[in-house]
């Protein structure tokens, strides 16, 4: 599969999950994504499934607490001014969480299709303007810098005794120090790069060259098959509303 095909497939699946409103509609879209995940990762599809459930579960719990337990009716019922029911509220939460689950799942599944490719090669393979590619790489760079800063800040605060590696009340009290330290670290990393390394080397020009290198086919036969199936799922979701 090509990066272009994966992105289009993903976008159509997202549209299908937003369009789906009935259990059968969600089942059709979820089955398609599951097939996509198995095709790309084999047994690792189970890992993608678990990860996606893990991402959505806290939100489901929170939304259930708010809408089902506390509010007790769905937003549409509130807007209509009717008494409503907890069942309707639960259905509302279920629809939102199902959509998010499918979105998270399709992203995980797409990653598995490109497990052998590097992020740079994936971005280079996209048929988008160079500026967009550069923006994607810089965004990934910022995310990596944030992760690096979190690791550095955690190390500093654990060694100093301010927080512990394991969950503790101390960590709750001093969480704001961790946030401050992470922020400071990100800024200093970025300043160091943009003051010394990047201007000396013209690093961003190097990036332009790397992203402009030949990237292979824009689409493959597999792309067309999966995109067609995704469009069919979208149509099913719309028809089953």
């Amino acid at each position, binding site marked *: 599969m090509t990066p272009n095909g994966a992105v289009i497939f993903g976008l159509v699946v997202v549209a299908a999950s937003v369009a789906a409103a009935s259990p059968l509609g969600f089942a059709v879209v979820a089955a398609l994504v599951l097939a996509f995940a198995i095709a790309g990762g084999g047994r690792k599809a189970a890992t993608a499934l678990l990860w996606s459930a893990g991402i959505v579960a806290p939100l489901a719990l929170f939304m259930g607490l708010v809408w089902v337990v506390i509010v007790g009716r769905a937003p549409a019922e509130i807007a209509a001014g009717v008494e409503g029911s907890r069942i309707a509220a639960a259905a509302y939460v279920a629809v939102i969480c199902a959509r998010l689950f499918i979105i998270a799942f399709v992203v995980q599944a797409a990653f598995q299709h490109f497990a052998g490719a*590097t*992020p*740079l*090669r994936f971005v280079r393979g996209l048929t988008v303007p160079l500026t967009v590619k550069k923006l994607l*790489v*810089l965004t*990934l*760079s910022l995310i*990596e*810098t944030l992760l*690096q800063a979190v*690791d*550095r800040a*955690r*190390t*500093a*605060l*654990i*060694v*100093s*005794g*301010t*927080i*512990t*590696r*394991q969950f*503790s009340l*101390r960590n709750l009290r001093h969480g704001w*120090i961790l946030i*401050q*330290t992470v922020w*400071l*670290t990100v800024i*200093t*990393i970025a*300043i*160091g*790069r943009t003051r*010394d*390394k*990047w*201007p*000396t*080397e*013209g*690093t961003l*020009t*190097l*990036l332009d*060259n*790397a992203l*402009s*290198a*030949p990237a292979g086919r824009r689409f493959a036969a597999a792309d067309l098959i999966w995109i067609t199936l995704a469009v069919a799922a979208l149509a099913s979701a719309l028809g089953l509303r």
Partner: protein
Amino acid sequence: MAAHELIVGPNFSGRSALLMRRLRERTPGASFYIGPYAEAALSGLSSTVADEIEIYGTNTAQDRSGFQLLDRIARDRPTFDVLDLKSFADRKPPTLSGGEQVLLALHCFSISTFRAIGIDTALEQLDPDNRALALLYLTFCEDQDALLIDNRLDHLDDWSRIDASEVDHRFACDLAAAVAPIAPRAAPAIAIEGLSFHYPGGWDVFADTSFMLAPGKAHRLTGANGTGKTTLMKLLAGVLRPSAGAITLDGAPYEPWTSGNRLFALATQNPDHQWCGATLAEDLTRRCAALAHHKELQAPTSEQLSTLATLFGIASRDQHLYELPLAARKRLSWLWPLTGTMPWIMLDEPTVGQDRATCEALARAIDTMCARGYGVIFITHDDDFADMIAHEQLLIAQGTISS
């Protein structure tokens, strides 16, 4: 003929500024730069080692018809291939050790089209074998200019020497006076049994290894770049949790990854990896506040900390840490360990970026701490520095630690 220049001088003599100026006198964007630490060694644009190599190895101006990276490189110049790039390809560059990052940066330079390289003390992080290879490579780069700052070199054959001699004395430090008032202390003996550790998805860094750390002595951790020296320090400080094994202090169980660190004061390899605040005052206040959880530890007084800050060349504790020169921050990273608050101190590559006079003073300070009963663990590839300290050597190799 390429110019190879060694910039020599003490700390705060303007060496780094001179190196940067000479690099930028060339066409902008024509020089490769390896600074003292990771943020100035790697591009920061790549999520994997493979991508880092690809960013530097691509040149579409030369070849748009194909993309045979290694073939093109072989035609232009020899590559610097010390790292096992295949096994490192999927790793995130910041997860490499400091020395491995320098080796990766050198490899990237060797596959690039840059005609000049500037290295600011980064080679000091390499183990002796890798350091010798790096110097050899740079010396025999016929078509590329090289500028180097290295505190362990006064001269190099076939290199010209540039002296930087106008010293800024604002950050002068007096380590002897800093450790003079430290009272004797009975640090606990540390026993590590059956230690095992591996990073998620990685290889075994330590596999069922056991060793002892006696107080009143200095222990030097040695081993090739990437063997786990810094990882061991992180395990002992509770930053990482071992997959197996136990640590005892005078026979009593000690699990810093659960209970918090109450034993070690650590000066990290990159000093910016240890700050707990934006200013020195904020950093020290938080460290002292953390001691409230451990009644057996006595925090230094405000007066003591102010005196120490002055001895480390810092006029005010309200000094913003990141406004200091890197060499000053490196020295400041020793302040907390040398307060004598924690019974054991760990110094990770303390001499990187430090001139000989400062290294000698630090060696004497370490000897003083040991003589007063403290335990010291240090990592250094600088054999001259290590020889100034009476120490026991612990070699880390193939997952084990041996005397």
